[in-house]
């Protein structure tokens, strides 16, 4: 028989793997005998093919070995023994146990927190029963120079759609109050932010937990309110609010329903809903005006509707309603957006709430994954390292007859014990730090949020998997040694460099996180300190809302305030920088009668605004008249408007006639661009009109010499004199600007938190590795010392060895990280560039940390008296 003639090796092994050991000898023998016979009769390839087929045909229940699972569960006597041994060996090496568990607890906690956050984000807007069939009506307008995507629709659209298409089951329109209204009930009065006008159908589409009243009819009559229980508590305390009255901007409203807060987060989170009929009383043209696109509109479609087809049908729906000519000006198209996916979709104008960021979620998810892998690697690494110290114990066990399976059971038992302990500690730690974590990210996460069954099941499965992964390697690695090998004084441990490269991987991960953190912080700092185009310091904003008596006496109030020693300048306006302005149409007419149209932002400001905010005029001048009628209005625009409308220079637009929001007049001035919104956005077109009836705020510039509490006290005293009927509500402009970047700051803090955890885990891992290596090489080191090596040389050689993987890891990660960070930064209109210094710095931090790890672990070995280690132990 020639040497090459053998049955297919793989199938031979496959058979051995799946065949019942009791049957294997006989069957394998039979098949092999037949194989050799057939080799002579039919040739090698046929015989081999037949062999393979025979094996595959034997995959049948009677031949396959009994599932070995029951064998993994040891009988109770041994179980007790394993437990005892596990506890003993864990307590014998407290340091090891602590390191191992700490790393794992931190890793699991980080993962749990991130998981909760991602879960919470993914549940946004998912809590409404009919949500799957609800769509938001979006409007796209195509203007000559602009395309506008609005999360809004014109007033009559919803009703007309419902009449025209049987697919529409119900519709609801919302509207925002134009300013923060003043809500009053006896002595309690506050400016409220979260009020929404809503059609009476609102609660048909979106169910909220009812506390009192009848939601079906609640929003039908004008001046009706539905408020949340918190809101009711705020104004009525413990007395039931249903049927009571609240004054909003001096009108009396009746509370017809009280609802509880929603369990899940949604962009439809208002404290108080006002009946839409109230809105219509003052603005009846809402029902007929097809160009006033200002209302968030939601459609409930019948369940079987083909949404794509329906979208096609309604796309140019307004065309016939508006008339061809009017329609051509804006080319208004409608489209539906699924309610449940609004949160992560692209931003549209007029959104009710902030958007979620998938980039952040992805970043966090990947971070969680890496942290878990790092913690796991540490765990495996440490278990293996320690297990090989216990080689003698295993040798003895083998000698007295322990089977391989029993050893495996024992190791799995130990790792399981550690992992489950770590998991329980991680749960405890998570629930302890969750409140502060919630503070950091401004959320209300809690552990009960997760679906109980899936969470517990998933948790247990994860723990089992980790125990298996962590326990299997040392278990198989050591139980495969022959006892003679294990009992010899020193068995070289294989694959030490493999482990040091895994440690390199850990450092690479930490390095990436360090880089991300530094860059995120730099970007946030950059945003916070970027010059917005006007000085933000020393400005207090006073809010008076819609109050006619205030409007009437604004000039006098200004005079009164200017008398105060601390006050330098006072200006009134409808908005202040950082607020979303009105979005209105502007039409500028040329001499030849052509007009240039665009949708632009508008602030109503007085004549002192330019001076107070130090906005420079590029052309023209400030308002010339202090009173204006509807036909002699004056308009100031910013440079971006000039560019958008296609004028060659600022001078060219001066003196042109304009039409905007029911007023006609001339453009008198052009100011330089400034960031009136956050730096996420480019500076858009902006216009100023002198429309005192829209004023709601006073900006007070105080002198640098005045102390802030003193200034505030003066202001409040004066306020009580001139506007005693209104609450004194102030804010600092620079604070408000900073709030625009809260989300980015949160991201930076999260990044910092998790990179600290990652660094800690990586450090633990390397310290353990170096420590282990030092114990093994103690004699080595002692011999080197005897031959004259200095302590520094010994530490240096260890560092040299362990830092190399760190260096490699750093080299591998910097390029992808550099690329990804640039992607992230490109989301910002204003952003920093990733500096090579940061990349270099992160590498240096990695090296420094690895040096700390090496130094702390090897110092005692390196400085010890050589004889200590050279004595036979």
């Amino acid at each position, binding site marked *: 028989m020639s040497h090459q003639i053998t049955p297919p090796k793989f199938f031979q092994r496959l058979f051995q793997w799946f065949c019942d050991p009791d049957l294997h*000898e*006989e069957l*394998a023998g*039979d098949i092999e*005998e*037949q194989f050799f016979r057939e080799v002579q009769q039919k040739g090698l390839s046929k015989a081999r093919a037949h062999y393979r087929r025979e094996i595959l045909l034997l995959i049948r229940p009677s*031949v396959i070995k009994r599932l070995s699972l029951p064998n993994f569960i040891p009988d109770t006597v041994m179980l007790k023994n394993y437990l005892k041994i596990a506890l003993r060996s864990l307590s014998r090496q407290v340091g090891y146990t602590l390191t191992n568990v700490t790393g794992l607890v931190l890793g699991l906690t980080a993962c749990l927190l991130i998981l909760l956050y991602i879960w919470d984000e993914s549940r946004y807007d998912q809590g409404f029963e009919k949500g799957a069939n609800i769509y938001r009506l979006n409007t796209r307008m195509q203007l000559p120079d602009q395309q506008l995507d609005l999360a809004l629709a014109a007033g009559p659209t919803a009703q007309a759609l419902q009449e025209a298409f049987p697919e529409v089951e119900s519709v609801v329109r919302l509207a925002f109050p134009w300013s923060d209204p003043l809500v009053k009930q006896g002595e309690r009065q506050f400016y409220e932010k979260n009020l929404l006008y809503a059609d009476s159908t609102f609660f048909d589409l979106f169910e909220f937990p009812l506390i009192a009243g009848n939601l079906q009819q609640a929003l039908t009559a004008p001046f009706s309110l539905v408020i949340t229980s918190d809101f009711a508590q705020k104004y009525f305390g413990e007395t039931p609010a249903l049927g009571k009255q609240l004054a909003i901007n001096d009108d009396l409203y009746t509370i017809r329903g009280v609802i509880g807060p929603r369990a899940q987060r949604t962009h439809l989170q208002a404290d108080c809903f006002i009946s839409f009929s109230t809105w219509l009383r003052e603005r009846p043209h809402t029902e007929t005006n097809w160009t006033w696109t200002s209302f968030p509109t939601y459609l409930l479609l019948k369940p079987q509707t083909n949404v794509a087809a329906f979208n096609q049908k309604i796309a140019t729906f307004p065309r016939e309603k508006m008339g061809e000519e009017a329609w051509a000006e804006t080319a208004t198209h409608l489209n539906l957006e699924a309610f449940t996916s609004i949160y992560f979709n692209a931003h549209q104008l007029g959104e009710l709430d902030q958007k979620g960021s998938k980039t952040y979620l992805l970043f966090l998810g990947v971070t969680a994954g890496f942290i878990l892998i790092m913690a796991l690697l540490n765990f495996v690494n440490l278990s293996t390292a320690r297990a090989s110290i216990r080689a003698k114990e295993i040798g003895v066990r083998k000698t007295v007859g322990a089977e391989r399976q029993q050893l495996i059971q024992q190791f799995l038992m130990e790792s399981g014990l550690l992992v489950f302990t770590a998991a329980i500690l991680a749960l405890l730690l998570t629930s302890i730090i969750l409140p502060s974590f919630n503070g950091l990210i401004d959320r209300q996460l809690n552990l009960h949020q997760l679906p109980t069954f899936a969470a517990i099941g998933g948790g247990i499965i994860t723990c089992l998997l980790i125990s298996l992964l962590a326990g299997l390697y040392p278990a198989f690695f050591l139980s495969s040694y022959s006892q003679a090998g294990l009992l010899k004084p020193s068995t070289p441990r294989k694959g030490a460099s493999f482990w040091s490269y895994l440690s390199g991987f850990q450092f690479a991960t930490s390095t990436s996180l360090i880089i991300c953190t530094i860059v995120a912080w730099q970007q946030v700092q950059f945003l916070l300190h970027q010059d917005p185009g006007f000085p933000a310091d020393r400005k207090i904003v006073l809010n008076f809302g819609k109050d006619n008596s205030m409007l009437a006496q604004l000039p006098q109030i200004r005079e009164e305030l200017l008398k105060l020693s601390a006050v330098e300048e006072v200006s009134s306006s409808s908005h202040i920088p950082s607020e979303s302005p009105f979005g209105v149409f502007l039409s500028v007419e040329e001499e030849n009668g052509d007009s240039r149209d665009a949708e632009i932002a508008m602030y109503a400001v007085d004549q002192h605004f330019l001076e107070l905010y130090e906005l420079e005029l590029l052309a023209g001048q400030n308002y010339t008249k202090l009173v204006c009628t509807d036909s002699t209005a004056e308009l100031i625009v910013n440079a971006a408007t000039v560019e958008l409308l296609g004028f060659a220079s600022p001078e060219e637009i001066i003196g042109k006639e304009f039409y905007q929001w029911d007023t006609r007049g001339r453009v008198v001035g052009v100011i330089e661009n400034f960031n009136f919104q956050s730096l996420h956005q480019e500076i858009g077109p902006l216009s100023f009109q002198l429309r005192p009836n829209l004023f709601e705020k006073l900006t007070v510039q105080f002198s640098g010499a005045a102390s802030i509490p003193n200034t505030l006290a003066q202001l409040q005293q004066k306020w009580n004199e001139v506007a005693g009927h209104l609450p004194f509500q102030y804010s600092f402009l620079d604070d408000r600007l900073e709030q625009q970047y809260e989300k980015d700051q949160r991201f930076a803090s999260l990044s910092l938190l998790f990179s600290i955890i990652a660094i800690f885990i990586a450090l633990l891992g390397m310290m353990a590795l170096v420590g282990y290596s030092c114990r093994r090489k103690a004699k080595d080191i002692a011999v080197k010392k005897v031959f004259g090596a200095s302590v520094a040389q010994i530490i240096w050689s260890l560092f040299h060895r362990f830092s190399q993987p760190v260096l490699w890891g750093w080299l591998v990660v910097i390029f992808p990280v550099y690329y990804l960070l640039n992607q992230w930064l490109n989301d910002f209109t204003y952003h920093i560039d990733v500096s090579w210094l940061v990349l270099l710095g992160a590498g240096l931090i990695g090296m420094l940390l690895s040096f700390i790890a090496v130094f702390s672990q090897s110092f005692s070995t390196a400085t010890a008296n050589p004889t200590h280690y050279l004595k036979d132990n």
Partner: protein
Amino acid sequence: MKGTYLGEFEELLLLVILILADEAYGVSIKEEILQRTQRSISRGALHTSLTRLEKKGYVQSAFGEATPVRGGRRKKYYQLTQEGKTVLEAVRNMRESLWKAVPNYKLGLQ
């Protein structure tokens, strides 16, 4: 004991094992069946049946010597137990008595 019923294939196996006398093991049984009945049976089916017969107590098995042609593995020889022989005999007797009861003309033979 799983009752005394003997399937057709089981009967065949018992007979073949008897024929092969001391040389009845996996490969030879399979070949003998192929030669005598032109039935190609799968190894799995053969093995399942042998196991079943052994459980019923009709055959017993023992490992023989190892041979190089089997990769150093031992053959497993099968032999009928006394019970196996009895049951085979019983089946035969029953069948013969049945045969005798069949009227010749019905067969249309001869």
